[in-house]
């Protein structure tokens, strides 16, 4: 069986008295789209910085395709492309040249990198700006350039640190589609984000991190079913005294002809509730449901919202 793309065990890192990471364990399989979800300062960037060699680990192991990121750094770094959250600034060279430099650092000669550089500039809508300096690009273009830089050496693993922070809705959707395409090509993607919607839409698995510890890991759906709750509101037209006995297995409130159910899995629960009400001869006027989300899961786990 092949090694996981990324395997982190017992990872610890402190800055003085502050425990940035307190025993983090993460396993990401090859080809997986994985999200590391947590508020600012939770330890997301520290984790990926240790993986890529920007931060020294205190304890634990960090493996990429089974090889240590410290002792075998040439192999592990060549497998990773990282789009950092912070924009880098270069005053001297046009962006096309910067992409050639970036490919060169990974051992790819200019003539071999040329097709990839051209493709990335085209696909990310930067081709008309290839002779511009970074300072001449808009915020959205800088974000796309960060992505191009991460992809120029065609890495197997792509690490994206808050890739859509500060970009408008349209670009965010474009970037999501681009990431889905990369995933479809078999790339392993590790995404850190504090946008719940982003993790829910894109990731096959997520780990929720807070104060340097992983609180829970699993698919967004499984986490939502396990820890989230959804609301179903049913407005009824007539009542009879006995109908409540038909609903004894559910947690609900009843007020002014409105029944509100709190359920784990609304997809399963709703048909059964409707059936029960029909059996009780209750007329249903309308049904509203609020779906459970990772936001509820995060709230349940940490007792606070992700942006608090």
């Amino acid at each position, binding site marked *: 069986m092949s090694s996981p793309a990324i395997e982190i065990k017992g990872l610890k890192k402190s800055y003085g008295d502050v425990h940035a990471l307190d025993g983090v364990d993460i396993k990401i399989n090859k080809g997986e789209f994985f999200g590391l979800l947590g508020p600012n300062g939770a330890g997301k960037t520290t984790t990926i910085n240790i993986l890529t060699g920007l931060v020294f680990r205190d304890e634990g192991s960090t493996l990429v395709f089974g090889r240590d990121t410290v002792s075998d750094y040439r192999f592990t770094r060549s497998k990773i492309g990282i789009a950092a959250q912070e924009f880098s600034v270069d005053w001297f060279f046009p962006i096309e040249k910067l992409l050639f430099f970036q490919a060169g650092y990974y*051992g790819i000669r200019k003539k071999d990198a040329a097709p990839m550089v051209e493709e990335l500039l085209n696909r990310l809508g930067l081709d008309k700006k290839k002779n511009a300096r970074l300072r001449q690009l808009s915020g959205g273009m800088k974000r796309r350039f960060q992505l191009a830089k991460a992809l120029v050496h065609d890495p197997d693993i792509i690490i994206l640190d808050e890739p859509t922070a500060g970009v408008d809705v349209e670009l965010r959707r474009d970037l999501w589609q681009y990431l889905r395409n990369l995933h479809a090509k078999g790339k392993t993607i590790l995404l850190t984000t504090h946008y719940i919607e982003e993790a829910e839409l894109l990731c096959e698995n997520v780990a929720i991190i807070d104060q340097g510890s992983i609180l829970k890991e699993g698919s967004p759906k499984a986490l939502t079913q396990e820890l989230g709750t959804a609301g179903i509101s049913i407005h009824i037209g007539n009542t009879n005294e006995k109908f409540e006995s038909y609903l004894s297995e559910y947690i609900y409130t009843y007020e002014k002809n409105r029944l509100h159910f709190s359920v784990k899995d609304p997809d399963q629960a709703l048909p059964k509730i409707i059936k029960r009400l029909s059996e009780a001869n209750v007329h249903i006027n309308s049904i509203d449901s609020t779906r459970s989300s990772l936001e509820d899961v995060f709230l349940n786990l940490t007792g606070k919202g992700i942006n608090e």
Partner: protein
Amino acid sequence: MNWVGFTTLVMREVGRFFSVYRQTVLPGVITTALYIVIFGFTLEQRISEIQGVPYTLFILPGLIMMNTLNNATANTSSSMLQMKLLQQLPDLLTAPLSGFEISIAYIIGGTVRGMVNGTLVLLLGMLLIQMPVKDPLGTLVFIFLVSWAFSSMGLLLGQLAESWDQLAMMQNFFLTPLSFLGGIFYSIKMLPDWAQTLSFINPIYYMINGIRYTILGVSDSPVLISYAMAISLTLLFTMISILLMQSGKKIKQ
């Protein structure tokens, strides 16, 4: 060894200073031309020959050395600090490049700038005042060694500095005084004994006198000591800068 990565970084560093040649190459040439004109037309009338050499000619090797070491130091120190402050350094530190490769590539970039500046000032002297060069190969060897040594020193200064202010302080309070006190404009034999003794602990004194010997055949110190000093400084600063880069001090957490 990641040769492609290494040569890419060398090309970046060399390309970086050539792309702003008005700031990195021309000033040294213009300043030296001004020195030659001002000293040639004014001070030389009043200052007699030093060690049998006309004054303007006497100071030129020192000016070559000052340009060489200032530019070599400035290239690596400013490039490293700029990469740190502008978030470019993570691109290098997350790439499959070793600390050794990054250090040597930076040092070569600074060495090229030091050599370009030193050689241009040398050519300017030969052109404007027909400066004779007694041992051209020795002169180029000195320019090379000093470029490499001070490029290495610049790299470690750039890595340790946290602001432009700190770098400027090193330049203004350390490098420039040592250059001027190293005997660019005078022979240390013109100084009182205590000042002569102090000059012996100034490494730049040996650099200036070494190159002066290879150009004019006169020197305050034996040329072999100057060579030994230049080689020792080169090895010392190279080793320290490589070790510092490998340690990740001030660039990794």
